[in-house]
């Protein structure tokens, strides 16, 4: 039985395909269209999913599952305007045309998009937005039973939900409703700090350790927080009901003046706000999780929704010990909603059974995207006359590890592309974590992004405990753990604002490139079972250097989606100061490429994110 899951029209649209309850393909549209967080109908990712399963013109699929209920969402829009009019007229006029011409007609759209490919579907099902998040968190998790917590900006009405999963059954028990939203609260501070909502949240989180939690009381004053983690916001501080701005002048007054302009230098206040909102977010998440525990009595917790990508809060939740086990959907944002909708259709609507072994999840390492054959890549390189070396399957890892040991920065393009926001070794840029300069080099010369942003380590699962205070695998880079005391280099505590680049360059441990200023790291553990090739490379680096990890950052430059195809990877190599590119079993070195190409491609970053 074949079920296609679709999420689109709000942010980060995606498609996925479930065949007999097993996810065979999933991808975000942005990777194909090259428009970051592309929200349009996922035409190209849908086509990829169909190709992956060999579904061709003339075929019929069993169901299409859509990740929210558009009419409920439209109802919320109308109710909101009825509640705030005469304010909000411009926003109403801006939003309404796309609702009337597109968003309300998703079912005919799905039929017509499939018809263009010669495909028919027997049924279209609609999931509630938070039900889709909850399904994406519970059904592919390793747990037979679990509590489920979802947190995001807003779905139809819900902004957070608590549920209980048992076997093939998943029930949402309680919701917190719009306009009271942890995701939108965090987004308001993201916008106020001069970052883009829906993409700048990571930056705010990365900035938090540089600041002091001096604004926590003011932030707590913005909400009536109950003991069970539910809360109401004081809407006089938030502008998102009526306008395009997330915050109001009262908000600016409370937080000492106007917001930071995008790209303006960061000030002490920005750092302190980042730290303070992070602290309060963690308090709310912890209280909600405690409530989920008392409501369900479960030992396992599953998380999804955009807020679940806050890996610092996830790490704190894990250390709090409320639950024995925690599993977070790696595509926790709306892209993962496509997967959740498909799973909900399979188990909840069609009543199909589910097997969970308590150990392994069903995400296949998140390697669910397109893969390319060496022969096709080589033919493309040959056609253009781009020099490359063929790597031997026996020695490739050592050859690449040698480059990394020589402080070269290498792009990895191998195997299936990852689904979700994280690059997990198949579309990654890697470097030597022992180098104190690596963080700045990779940020400024390769990613063209802010120097303060930390990088994540990809560490061999079997050696993770020798470096990090982490007692379990973290295969999706969704947990933050402390670098062990004995690995640290003492630093002066940060009291007030100093040059962020200076701090970023200061050695903090024997793996400085992945150690944040608070000695934390966003860990990806790599197992032989899930990604043998990446494991082989890190093992080769370990054999050479005694260091069982690499710096891992996503294969893209600032403002662009992660690369999906060999051509995009090649362009990225030539546009940046990356040294080499591994394309399957082929090695492309930048300094061997035609000189004019280096000039052609040496442009600045795409649109700022």
């Amino acid at each position, binding site marked *: 039985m074949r079920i296609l899951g679709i999420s689109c029209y709000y942010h980060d649209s995606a498609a996925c395909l479930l065949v007999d309850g097993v996810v065979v393909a999933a991808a975000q549209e942005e990777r194909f269209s090259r428009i970051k967080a592309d929200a349009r109908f996922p035409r190209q990712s849908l086509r990829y999913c169909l190709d992956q399963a060999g579904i061709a013109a003339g075929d019929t699929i069993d169901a299409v599952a859509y990740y929210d209920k558009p009419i409920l969402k439209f109802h919320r829009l109308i109710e909101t305007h009825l509640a705030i009019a005469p304010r909000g007229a411009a926003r*109403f006029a801006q939003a309404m045309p796309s609702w009337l011409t597109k968003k309300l007609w998703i079912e005919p759209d799905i039929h017509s998009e499939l018809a263009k490919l010669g495909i028919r579907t027997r049924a279209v099902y609609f999931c509630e937005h938070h039900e889709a998040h909850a399904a994406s968190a519970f059904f592919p998790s390793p747990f037979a039973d679990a509590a489920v917590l979802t947190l995001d900006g807003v779905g139809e009405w819900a902004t957070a939900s608590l549920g209980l999963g048992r076997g093939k059954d998943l029930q949402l*028990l309680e919701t917190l409703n719009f306009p009271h939203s942890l995701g939108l609260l965090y987004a308001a501070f993201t916008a106020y700090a001069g970052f883009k909502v829906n993409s700048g949240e990571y930056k705010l989180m990365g900035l938090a350790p540089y600041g002091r939690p001096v604004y926590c009381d003011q932030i707590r004053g913005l909400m009536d927080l109950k003991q069970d983690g539910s809360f109401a916001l004081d809407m006089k501080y938030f502008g998102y009901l009526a306008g395009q701005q997330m915050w109001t002048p009262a908000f600016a007054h409370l937080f000492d003046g106007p917001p930071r302009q995008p790209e303006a230098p960061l000030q002490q206040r920005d750092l302190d706000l980042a730290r303070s909102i992070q602290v309060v977010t963690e308090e709310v998440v912890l209280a909600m999780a405690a409530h989920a525990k008392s409501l369900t009595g479960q030992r396992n917790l599953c998380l999804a929704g955009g807020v679940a990508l806050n890996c610092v809060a996830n790490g704190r939740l894990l250390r709090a010990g409320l639950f024995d086990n925690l599993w977070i959907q790696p595509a926790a944002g709306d892209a993962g909603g496509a997967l959740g909708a498909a799973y909900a259709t399979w188990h909840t609507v069609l009543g199909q059974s589910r097997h969970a072994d308590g150990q392994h999840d069903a995400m296949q390492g998140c390697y669910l995207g397109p893969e390319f054959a060496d022969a096709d890549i080589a033919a493309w390189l040959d056609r253009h006359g781009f020099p490359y070396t063929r790597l031997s399957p026996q020695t490739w890892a050592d050859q690449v590890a040698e480059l990394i040991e020589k402080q070269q920065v290498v792009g990895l393009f191998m195997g299936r592309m990852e689904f979700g926001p994280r690059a997990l070794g198949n579309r990654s840029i890697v470097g030597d974590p022992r180098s104190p300069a690596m963080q700045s080099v990779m940020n400024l010369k390769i990613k063209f992004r802010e120097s303060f942003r930390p990088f994540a380590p990809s560490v061999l699962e079997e050696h993770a405990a020798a470096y990090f205070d982490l007692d379990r695998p973290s295969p999706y880079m969704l947990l933050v753990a402390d670098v062990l005391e004995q690995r640290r280099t003492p630093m002066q505590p940060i009291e007030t604002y100093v040059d962020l680049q200076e701090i970023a360059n200061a050695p903090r441990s024997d793996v400085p490139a992945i150690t944040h200023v608070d000695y934390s790291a966003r860990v990806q553990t790599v197992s032989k079972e899930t990604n043998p090739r990446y494991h082989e490379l890190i093992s080769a680096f370990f054999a050479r250097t005694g260091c069982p990890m690499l710096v891992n950052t996503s294969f893209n430059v600032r403002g662009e989606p992660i690369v999906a195809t060999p*051509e995009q990877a090649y362009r990225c190599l030539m546009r940046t100061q990356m040294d080499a590119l591994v394309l399957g079993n082929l090695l492309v070195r930048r300094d061997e490429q035609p000189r004019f190409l280096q000039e052609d491609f040496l442009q600045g970053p795409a649109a700022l994110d």
Partner: protein
Amino acid sequence: MAIGLQRQGTEPLSHRDQPVPWLGQRLEGPAKPPWAVGSAWLQVLLPLGIAAGLALGGWTKVSLGAALLTGIGLTLRFAKPDRYAQVAAALQALGRLSGRAMAYATLIPLYFLVITPLGLWRRQGRDPLHRVWQKAAPSYWQPHASQGVSAPEPVEQHRHPY
């Protein structure tokens, strides 16, 4: 610098480049020639029909103008499809812009004449978005709609976009 000479033997990257197919990708056949696309003929015949109608109604000069524009469009469409695509994109952008202007022109009055009075009437003494804090209440969590004896069956719940 003699870039042209340096380029010899290599084909520059471009968006028209034949992409590397992913494993299992079903490649589309070569693109149809412009004259084989049905919508192209519609785009030609429609203005021609308008021109003929204008001619019959005695608007000869306007009709000739329309026919001339059709001729230019026809030439571009079939002889210079790239250039035609640029013109079409520009016209589409113009259409979107005017569509937005028209939407504002109709929806803003609607907002003030219908939504606003209705909203003001509906929220008299009420707090429809629950913005007022419930200090005495123990929780803001709400039971989910799927809870309770009147909740519909899962299949029914999922069949509708509401």
